[in-house]
């Protein structure tokens, strides 16, 4: 059950009226609206938010590694609606065993590079992504640098060994 103070806001209320089961949690973090959903519903919910709530901008997609806690990864979608001057964050929790999400490139084309970056840095895969390759690291790189179990220094590719 979502907190009443959040259901009083227009966007969560609209989502609840459209499909009561789509949100798995919600909170206000320092005044910012954060909504939780699941892997199965992320594309539906994105499409609903874009078409019915005018979240035409996907500001970014990123990820948080909560290692060693499970579910380990939190995929974060920063959405923005220019007409309503409203921002919200969508989140999906992922276990390390199945760090896979459907891609939202079909909803916002701008998700393309951000999803590639999350894949590159965290190893979270995006199903249905048109071009899921590393974007910042070299193609031959092993491991995913922003994972918490990846060292800051002393990686085997570090310049020291060259």
């Amino acid at each position: 059950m979502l907190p009443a103070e959040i259901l009083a806001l227009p966007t969560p209320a609209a989502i609840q009226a459209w499909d009561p089961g789509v949100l798995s949690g919600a909170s206000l973090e320092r005044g910012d609206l954060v909504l939780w959903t699941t892997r199965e519903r992320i594309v539906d919910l994105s499409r609903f938010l874009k078409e019915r709530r005018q979240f035409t901008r996907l500001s970014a997609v990123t990820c948080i590694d909560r290692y060693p806690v499970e579910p380990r990864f939190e995929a974060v979608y920063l959405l923005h609606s220019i007409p309503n001057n409203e921002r919200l964050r969508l989140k999906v929790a992922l276990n390390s065993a199945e760090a896979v999400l459907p891609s939202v490139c079909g909803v916002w084309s701008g998700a393309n590079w951000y999803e590639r970056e999350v894949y590159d840095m965290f190893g979270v895969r995006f199903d249905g992504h048109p071009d899921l390759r590393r974007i910042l690291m070299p193609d031959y790189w092993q491991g995913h640098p922003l994972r918490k179990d990846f060292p800051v220094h002393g990686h085997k590719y570090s310049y020291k060994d060259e």
Partner: protein
Amino acid sequence: MNPTDTALDSGLQEMAPEAAGAPRRMVLNMGPQHPSTHGVLRVILELDGEIVTKAQPDIGFLHTGIEKQAEALGWQQVVTLTDRMDYLANLSNNLAYSLSVEKLLGLEIPPKAQWMRVLLAELARINSHAVWLGTHALDLGAMTVFFYCFREREDLLRIFEMFSGQRMMTSYIRIGGLALEPPRGWDRAVRNFIRGLPEKVDEYEALLKENPIFLRRTQGVAAVPLERLLDLGVTGPMIRAAGLGWDIRKAEPYSSYEQFDFQIPVQQEGDVYARFLVRLEEMRQSARIVEQAIDGMPEGPWRADAPHVLLPDREKMKTQMEALIYHFKVVTEGMRVPAGEAYAPVESPRGEIGFYVVSDGGAQPWRVFMRTPSFGNLQSLAEMFEGRLIADTIAALGSMDFVLGDVDR
């Protein structure tokens, strides 16, 4: 056989014509070392004669792992990393990071620090636009503008040095306020510069606005419809040149921008020329904001009263035990930020910059994600290039005004 992606990736090679009727294409590797890519950007172009049929940007050459490094530094130390992302507008980056962390901390910033931040962020915008205009015009064959713009940039770097002791990597805006007290005579130095600026912007305009060569190279070039730009995650002057008057300084005012009187320039055409007009007018508006900031600069402290975050005054440390304890803790452990997460967007010269910071309650950030404008803007590159002449790619690249340090982080 059409070139496949792997053929594209291997760079420069000419495709032999295969079956009859198959188009003859050439793959051209532009960059990473190419003067008009303004940094180390590689674009793989597939050409049909002089027409670009496919463009594929390849980034990451300047990737230095700033987000990873941030997790290994103290909260206040990360400010120095933000300087090195978008090195033409580092004060906007400092500001965006500080605002996010201050949102987590719930810090109240005194008015003088807020106004000083506005003033510096606008000077950074003028600096960034001057560098953009100079290099963009140089790409299109107008060399004089470059010298004029770098003359203004030199004045600005001197002002930044006066404030912070550094010309480029200033780190002057810190969590909780400013790094140092503004130097004596700062208002005179800034006013001298800003009084002369509108005249100089007129000069740039006179050199380019009706210059037939410049017009031919820029008008109608690389226009992308507004809906596509928004869908691709483009922000800043590029969408204002395509007809949408959205600016975070007006839409979600931060650091007391709501107290300033300025306009958001908008153009409808969305081409390279419209972007030039928008940025030129933004320099004039920034000059207006800076003038207002000098005239109305509030008195008072230049940083927040938060001894658990910032080093206490020297005087208090000598007389109060608590101040001494706080000093010891801040120096030895670093400041602690309560657990939680925050995002605070800022309008940088290139568009929306925001730091999504996550804290676990410790003295180091758990995660710092940098939503940089150049990364989002660069996604529109393929649509600007495709179907256009190869010579237009130079104009289009320049008009996007990205900084590769900002793209790759």
